[in-house]
């Protein structure tokens, strides 16, 4: 990637909420692992079982996270949109996706090469820590949401008598 291209990507990255508060030198460093992508509606950004070679910071559009459930078909369990992070499986071995991600609308995103970013995080642990802090926030939030979903949230209480 040329210096001009990296500068352009860094400019785009600076406007994404994921890097809010991040040192600009680190923004420029991680921008070197990214490029701008556009996906049409219906395109799969990642598929279950494939190697997690990249992740995305969504800039525009909506992405449905799906799983195929035998007997029930394809189930959407979450949607992500502008300003959100898609994909954390690249962080932990075996670096594999456990769901599909389908563009519901036209999607614009910054696509990051996972091995490139892992190398930079290993080479400079301060960079790694800043990245991990930013990944953990949506992961913790989504874990809580998943717990609420699993709790069959909308099953009504069944009173002991009379109702």
């Amino acid at each position, binding site marked *: 990637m040329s210096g001009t291209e990296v500068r352009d990507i860094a400019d785009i990255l600076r406007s994404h909420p994921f890097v809010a508060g991040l040192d600009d030198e680190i923004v420029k460093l991680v921008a070197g692992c990214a490029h701008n992508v556009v996906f049409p509606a219906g395109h799969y950004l990642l598929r279950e079982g494939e190697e997690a070679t990249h992740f995305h910071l969504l800039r525009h559009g909506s992405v449905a996270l799906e799983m195929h459930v035998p007997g029930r078909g394809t*189930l959407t369990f979450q949607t992500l949109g502008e300003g959100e992070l898609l994909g954390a499986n690249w962080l932990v071995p075996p670096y594999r996706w456990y769901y599909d991600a389908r563009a519901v609308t036209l999607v614009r995103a910054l696509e990051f090469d996972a091995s490139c970013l892992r190398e930079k995080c290993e080479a400079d642990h301060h960079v790694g820590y800043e990245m991990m802090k930013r990944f953990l926030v949506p992961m913790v939030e989504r874990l809580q949401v998943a717990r609420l*979903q699993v709790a069959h949230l909308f099953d*009504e209480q*069944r009173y002991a008598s*009379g109702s």
Partner: protein
Amino acid sequence: MRPVAESSVKSSALSNKAVIAERAPAAPVPTNATSMTPTFLRIAERVQETADVVTLELAVPSEHEAAFRHRPGQFDMLYVFGVGEVPISISGDATRHDRVTHTVRAVGPVSTALTKLGTGDVVGVRGPFGNPWPLDAARGADVLVIAGGIGLMPLRPVILHLLRNRGQFGRVSLLYGAKRRDDLLFRDELSDWRRHPDLEVRVALNEADRDWTGDVGFVTQLLPKVGVAPADTVAFLCGPEIMIRATGRALVDIGMSARHVHASMERNMKCALGTCGHCQLGPLFICRDGPVFSFDRIDPLMSIREL
């Protein structure tokens, strides 16, 4: 509560909009707080909302109209002869006095029996009971209406009130979470509300098929999408208790005062008169002290497993 004249609304140091000030006590709330005798009302209209949810519109004869006047948030006890009696939120337009509307989900024997009744059948009704949503206190503020599942039922009168009095409120948003698309209530009205220029509506399903192009997840994930001005917002919540707990805390986490978050609570209710104690939540009787509470009162109690 310290009474303050309605005209003395303060300006926030952080915002040009007025903060929610304490207001003079509202007019007395209509209630049939001592009634143990049901009145017989006939079902004038029945609407099948979903596979297990039915809306029953009961005709109120003119001689009973005064007794059944109610405010958004109140409930009635509905009696199915030979089966039993259950508390059901009033889900209809509070300004209409010749009808009282309830939306019922078939859960146990009484509610199931209610959903099987048809036009012309008679239901025993006691009420109205409970305290209403503090809509007067929300005047001048942005309003967040957040419903989970059948929690939309007691919030529907709120939405109707807000739309009828739109100029008295700031931004109005409805965040509605349901398990699946088939569980969405009041679908025709929901479509109308989505098209309303002064009402922002976002719906999140717990799970969806590929045809659904809206949000999937939990209702709190919709908060960043509508934007909330914490100092200028009042929220009304209803849904499963775990949803109220999670949503109330999420609102407090983004800077809202727990006193400006209000939730309609449900517990096993029998007499509706504050006598039997079945609906107690610690020191509170849901039927008598609620069902609408500010979140600062109920949050500590909801964390106590024994309650």
